[in-house]
């Protein structure tokens, strides 16, 4: 058996993979793991998005684009295009956006998980990229792995069954 490379994507980080192998990010809570895949060029991308919009950023000039939905998705698309992907062929999948603590639901500003999900969907729609699979919400954490050759997204969590999208 040959071992294929796994690209690890950290919190507020993004990564691109060409061909086989996988992209993986661990411990998604209210963050969203957004993945894009071009099945023809076999180019895959993943972003671990923390916040819905960069309009709330106070980071100044060294803004981390991977952290915000509205900057991470364009950046991911751009990098994938440089690796030969075409936006028109891309399909999106995502997981995460949980509300880890029940009481948090009562306060609008604490609804960060659902807001991340809504924001990602709106931005994918702007680019005309179809959302082919989604496992979001709930109150539990997720680890996701996108397989580069097939575009299958594997979702693991502590007390749930393994899901495939």
């Amino acid at each position, binding site marked *: 058996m040959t071992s294929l490379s796994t690209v690890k994507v950290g919190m507020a980080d993004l990564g691109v993979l060409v061909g086989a192998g996988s992209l993986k990010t661990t411990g998604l809570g209210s963050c969203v793991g957004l993945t894009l895949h071009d099945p023809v060029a076999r180019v895959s991308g993943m972003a671990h998005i923390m916040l819905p919009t960069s309009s709330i950023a106070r980071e100044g000039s060294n803004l981390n684009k991977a952290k915000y939905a509205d900057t991470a998705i364009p950046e991911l698309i751009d990098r994938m295009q440089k690796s030969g992907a075409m936006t028109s062929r891309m399909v999106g999948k995502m997981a995460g956006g949980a509300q880890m603590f029940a*009481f*948090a639901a009562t306060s609008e500003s604490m609804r960060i998980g659902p807001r991340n999900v809504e924001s990602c969907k709106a931005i994918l729609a702007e680019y005309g990229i179809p959302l082919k699979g989604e496992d979001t919400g709930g109150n539990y954490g997720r680890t996701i792995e996108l397989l580069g050759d097939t575009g299958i997204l594997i979702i693991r969590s502590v007390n749930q069954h393994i899901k495939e999208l």
Partner: protein
Amino acid sequence: MDVLKEVGNIGAGNAATALSKLLDKPVDMQVPKVNLLPFEAITNIVGGSEQVVIAIFLRVVGDAPGNMFFVIQPASAKKLLERIAGLEIEEEEDRFSEMEYSALHEIGNILAGSYLSSLADFTKLSLQPTVPSLAVDMAGAILSFGLMEYGAMGDRALLIDTKFLEGQDAVEGHFFLIPDPESFGKMFAALGVPVE
């Protein structure tokens, strides 16, 4: 930083006393570490973002808001439950009954409450805990929630980390206090330290 370490020390000292009363045994507490840490490094303290942990989370409201976590690993939680609540613990990893959840919730509540009230006494700031929530899940999923306030500022957060150790079986727990970015100034001012 030294001042914050001292603040952490005082809070944790009280919490350690509360814990040793609950256990009826001495509890060692390490000197708090105060650090501005990258997000990834924060989850690494408790074994990485996929490590299953038990966390009691509460939001600190009042003059200097922030987030507070009491984090322990499942094995340590089982030992705590055995000692304090006298509950018979099943061997099965990572699974807890309603009764055990409830006891852990209460233990976390007492510890966090005593940490916070001594902090409030010392700084003369009004600091109240919200009703605590409990979660058993991946450390990354839980702690990232407490880092959101920092997310908009950068990729690092100020963390006051205190580690508890009890006896030879080493029941190990961590207290994380993550003051909101806006809160340092108030804390320093309350302690009489000039802020640049």
